């Protein structure tokens, strides 16, 4: 039976603590100005409430990744379980993947002069652990799912504030935030 790993981001549970990004940075020993996961507050035009809602985004491990297609050096590979892996040792730092990914997942490491991105902690997955961001999330807003068996009618692929790219078919799924229970003036 095939597997396609993906992140499920429950925007209703996310409190914007950015613990996911910190755990990612800590586990992957990222450079000070480097992030592989970033939390974006939803614009008030999308979520017009005093309470805020957030998108926590890293690499979406697309079905047909733009980064992999754009990379001239063949530094990207896709595992059978759907994880898009970037091999930094063969990267020539052309930044074509950064220009090509509509979600801004690959970032340029100015010190090492190569691109980097979320690996979905495949080393941890292979060891039977969950990704660092998933493990760190205090509210359970981030979970790891297998898209081949995932069945949640409330999950959406393209929430507002997230570019729809059907050709790339990003794997991340989202639960939309509900209206605040208490409306404050």
């Amino acid at each position, binding site marked *: 039976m095939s597997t396609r790993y993906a992140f499920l981001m429950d925007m209703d549970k996310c409190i914007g603590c950015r613990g996911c990004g910190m755990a990612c940075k800590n586990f992957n020993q990222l450079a000070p100005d480097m992030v592989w996961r*970033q939390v*974006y*507050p*939803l*614009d008030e*035009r*999308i979520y017009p409430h005093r309470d805020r809602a*957030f*998108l926590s*985004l890293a690499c979406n491990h697309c079905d047909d990744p*733009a980064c*992999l*297609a*754009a*990379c*001239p*050096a*063949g530094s990207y590979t896709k595992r059978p379980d759907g994880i898009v892996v970037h091999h930094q040792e*063969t*990267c*020539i*730092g*052309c*930044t*074509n993947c950064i*220009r*090509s*990914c*509509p*979600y*801004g997942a690959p970032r*340029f490491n100015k010190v*090492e*002069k*190569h691109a980097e991105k979320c690996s979905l902690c495949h080393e941890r997955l292979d060891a039977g652990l969950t990704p660092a961001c998933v493990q760190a999330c205090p509210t359970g807003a981030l979970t790891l799912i297998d898209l081949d068996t995932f069945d949640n009618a409330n999950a959406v692929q393209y929430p*507002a*504030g*997230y*570019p*729809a*790219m059907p*050709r*790339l078919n990003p794997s991340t799924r989202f639960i939309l935030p509900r209206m605040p229970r208490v409306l404050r003036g």
Partner: protein
Amino acid sequence: MTYEFPLVFFTVLTQLGIGLALAAAWKTCFGGAAVPRRLWLAALVATLAGLVASLFHLGAPLRAVTALNGLGHSWLSREGLVFGLFVLLLLLAALRPGRAVTALPAALAGLAALVVQGFTYAPVSLPAVSNGFPLLLFALTALTLGTAFGAETPGPQRLTICLLLVVLLIVPCLWASGSAVMQETAALWRQSAGFWAGLVLTAAALVLSLVRRTAAPAQGVLLFCGALLVRVTFFSATVHTATHLGMPY
């Protein structure tokens, strides 16, 4: 905002090389007079200078040759291959100027390089230019520069300059009626001093051409500087979808 100067010089210089090669090939096949070797050599030098400029864009320029690894899927790899072929054919044409058998393959390789370049710089993440616009811009840049330095009569130059000006004035207006990212791109291009300065220089080349009634290098210099300024805008003011995450698209 990143200006991507190596890519600015790479694209404009290689398009100058392609334009010169097209002009030289046209003269070889349809012109009466002999094509001077220096025209082919100028095309070769401009293309090589562009390729050297592209190396400054890489984080690991010494491993630039591995950019050919992705020929099966990457337009950037194909760009590297086609430009390598173009340089070789330009060298052949420079060694045997005035012969259609060397001029035509060089011109065809130049056209192929333009097409591949048009695809390379039209990623899905830049909605405003993820279409035929880069190809159109690059082709018109190559033609204006090629006719400015390579044509003997001003007619073709005036026509290509007019087309380039029309495209550059109309396209941002089309973006303004598109998605939020395209609208922001239109606004940034319109606010860009470099964009307007590039247009003014291009228009000045047209005026000079009309006044002097000849194709002169001075017009070519104006067009080259104008192309550089517009290209800086192309790379720095075209909005990426990732900058809008969390905001309406």
